[in-house]
């Protein structure tokens, strides 16, 4: 049975971002699997709105960081400023001290600033001036990046990309959804009027439930077979890493929970596979832009279910 609170959350988001059920479901799955999300798309397709809505319906704090090429790590993490009254340094937390962070146009910043964010994502804590400060729980980063062939970008290296659990694309809405958007109410107003469906405590519970979704031996065999195929097939430069396999299993669990099941099916794995392989598998032949769905479909059809 599907969980009513998750259904309600999805319905709320779908009401505001029209015609994007699948990316929305994936981003919620990513959040449930305690991962971070990377969205690669053109400006203006609703990335910011998605992040904002997610934070709102889940009852989470939200901050947005616009990445620029002159950004410094302190602009993200925070800085200590001398307070003349007390005669001591006071730490002013940066925008990262929140529950949902939208890191906009992450590949506009220099690698130094990028790595400050990515380290915080990985450790879920910030070390500044010798003191370690834990980030709030839950902590979820939605990073957006412009297509890498645009001018003035610093592409993220593969090892950094791997820290994002999923990479999705939103894309243009279809004409009917776009028409509804144009005819409908002001989106910002709609977001402001939204009420939280759950609180952070409920969300952590849901994350724990996600982790408890059963993955049978047959299913783990399947994940291994998929990984083994990417490692031995000459189609790709390098195969899926063990970390990628863990990511695949974690997102598939969340997908199963969203579908109201207590166990993972091969269908779950196949549904989330494009988001997993999009930034991890690089075909040998066409090193330019590759369609994640096509890559995943080729992989799925090459590996029989064990």
């Amino acid at each position: 049975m599907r969980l009513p609170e998750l259904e309600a959350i999805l319905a709320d988001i779908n009401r505001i971002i029209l015609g994007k059920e699948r990316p929305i479901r994936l981003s919620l799955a990513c959040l449930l699997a305690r991962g971070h999300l990377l969205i690669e798309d053109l400006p203006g397709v609703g990335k910011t709105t998605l992040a904002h809505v997610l934070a709102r319906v889940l009852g989470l704090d939200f901050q947005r960081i616009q990445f620029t090429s002159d950004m410094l790590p302190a602009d993200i993490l925070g800085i200590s400023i001398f307070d003349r009254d007390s005669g001591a340094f006071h730490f002013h937390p940066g925008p990262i001290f929140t529950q949902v962070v939208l890191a906009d146009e992450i590949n506009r910043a220099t690698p130094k600033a990028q790595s400050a964010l990515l380290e915080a994502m990985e450790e879920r804590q910030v070390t500044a001036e010798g003191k370690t400060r834990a980030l709030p729980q839950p902590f979820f980063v939605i990073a957006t990046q412009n297509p890498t062939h645009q001018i003035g970008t610093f592409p993220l290296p593969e090892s950094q990309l791997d820290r994002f659990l999923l990479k999705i694309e939103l894309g243009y809405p279809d004409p009917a959804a776009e028409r509804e958007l144009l005819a409908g109410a002001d989106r910002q107003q709609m977001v402001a009027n939204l009420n939280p469906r759950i609180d952070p405590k409920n969300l952590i519970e849901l994350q724990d439930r996600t982790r408890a979704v059963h993955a049978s031996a047959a299913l783990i065999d399947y994940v291994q077979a998929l990984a083994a195929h990417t490692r031995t097939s000459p189609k790709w430069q390098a195969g899926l890493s063990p970390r990628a396999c863990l990511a695949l299993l974690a997102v598939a669990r969340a997908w199963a929970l969203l579908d109201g099941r207590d166990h993972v099916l091969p269908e779950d794995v196949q549904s989330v596979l494009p988001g997993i392989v999009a930034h991890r598998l690089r075909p040998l032949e066409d090193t330019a832009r590759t369609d994640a769905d096509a890559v995943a479909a080729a992989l799925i059809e090459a590996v029989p279910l064990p």
Partner: protein
Amino acid sequence: MARASRPVSRRQAWWLLATALAASAPLAPQVPLWLSITAGGIFALRAALTWRQWHLPPRWLMVLLVIAGTVGVFMQYRTIMGRTPGIALLVVFLALKLLELRVARDAVATALLCYFLVLGQFLFTQTIPTALMACLTLLVTTATLLAAADDRPSPQHQLRRAGLMLAQALPFMLLMFLLFPRVQGPLWGLPQDRFSAVSGLSDSMSPGSIAQLSQSDAIAFRVQFKGDVPPQSQLYWRGPVMSAFDGRTWRVTRKRGTYSEAPYAVAGAPVDYDLTLEPHGQFWMFALELPGTLPANSALTTDYQPIARQAVRNRVRYTQRAWPEAIAGATELPRILQESLVLPSGGNPRIRAIGAEWRAKLGDDSTAILAAAENFFLQQLLIYTLNPPLYGADMIDEFLFGSKRGFCEHFAAAFVYSLRAAGVPARVVAGYQGGEINPVDGYLVVRQYDAHAWTEAWIAGRGWVRVDPTAISAPGRINNNFAAAVPAGEALPFLARSDLAWLKELRNRLDAVTNGWNQWVLGYNPERQRDLLSSLGLKEPDWRSMTAVLSVLCGAVLLGLTAWILRNRLRVDPALAAWRRFTARLSKRGIEWRTWEGPLDFAERAAAHAPTHAVTIREIAGLYARLRYGPAPDESDLIRLRTKIAAFNP
């Protein structure tokens, strides 16, 4: 073929270089030095080419190099046929082939050539270290072959896979070794350019020739007794018998006849044993006195010595029966007795005078003359030593009355001389005395330093009687071993010394392993194979029944290995088995299950194709999905799934 023309990668080039080095390095002692240096230079050049990623030499240069290499080998040996020239040529070709590794086909050809060179090592030596080295090279070569197919996995991974493949091949190798119908004669016995320098007894004996052997601890032969081991003092291993003496050197008589079976009056209990003779390049086959049966392809000379029809150039193993108490030559041919009385025309006057004196006093009583001679030797207080002085023309007199120091050949020569001087027929017997039991495997090991010379005297009525003059003066030589009889401080071969117990123990163990290898691997000939097969219940095996058994056993091993590999796949999940029946039924309706398709996805597709059965199809798929992927599968669900599938008839 696209695969065959794929270029050789750098990694593959390193693999091939390592393999070529492993395959050709053990052959370095066999090929001429210039060739080893040239091959090493080419290997280094190849390494540089790979390292720097330079271009390979042009084809016209390769053709010239091949011609130069062939001519070089021809100049060295004056032929390119035969064992050593053939191997040298292969080493040249292997080295040059490395310089034209262009595509995958070249890599495979190089690896196969390396396999052949591994075999080539066995044309020279067949020892355990050679075999171990060959196993290692085999592993590297197989890993190289794997890398030639796919060079991405790490070296450890390739070696592990190659090891696994070889391990899987091992049972087949053992079966083939044990059961494949064998041809007579070892495969390795092909050319005869070996044994240029093997030590052992020769067919003549001059002062110092046996003392020289006493410095060698090489193994002469190994013996396995079927009953109790006779006492040390009875272990006289008969070798060449020498009657002709020219004043300095004793020689085997050229004109000897042969018996086809032993002409003794048998007495006492026989001693049965198996003897494994190391190759020594001569004709005689050592046997405990007196040899009763004869090894195959041998005859017994008129002086009771088994000789082979061909020189012993390979290790031979024969079963023997000895009659220690048999009486030989009671009615000896007059010609032989005549030969056994001949003395050189002059020299050694003092011993001649003493012999004549015994003759005058004791007449024809040869028993009494023999006793007198033994008594005389005892009274002379002769000294047994490895370092006798050099004797001049009258060497017997100088030995007996001068320095009195001598080794066994001096004793034997002097004793025979004195008996002949007294008119008693006598002759020198060379061979080995004693031996040492290896406590590890119970074999008696006889080494070169056990070489010995003793005498035989002909007594009317008793035939030939063995007398060991060394035993008279130095009984320790016969009752213990030769080290015990030699005065302290004289140089002894390492193993003859008794104070290095741990070394001896180590050597005994090593020797037992080597002996086992010789007996069961190198010496596994048709007879041994027949014995083994009959002990396994295969009576009168011929090549047909052996081939049949071999095929059946290989098939069984293959099945076993396959089952082992498939053991996980054979254990089919019952839910999956039921699901396969279900999809088979739907496929008759034209709805094929794609092997990668999840059950629910398939159910949706099938339901769309067969809307009348949609509910059942979804139910079955749901049940199956829960059974196969859900937590704690329920037995009642499985029964429901089976019932539903049994009732399902689209």
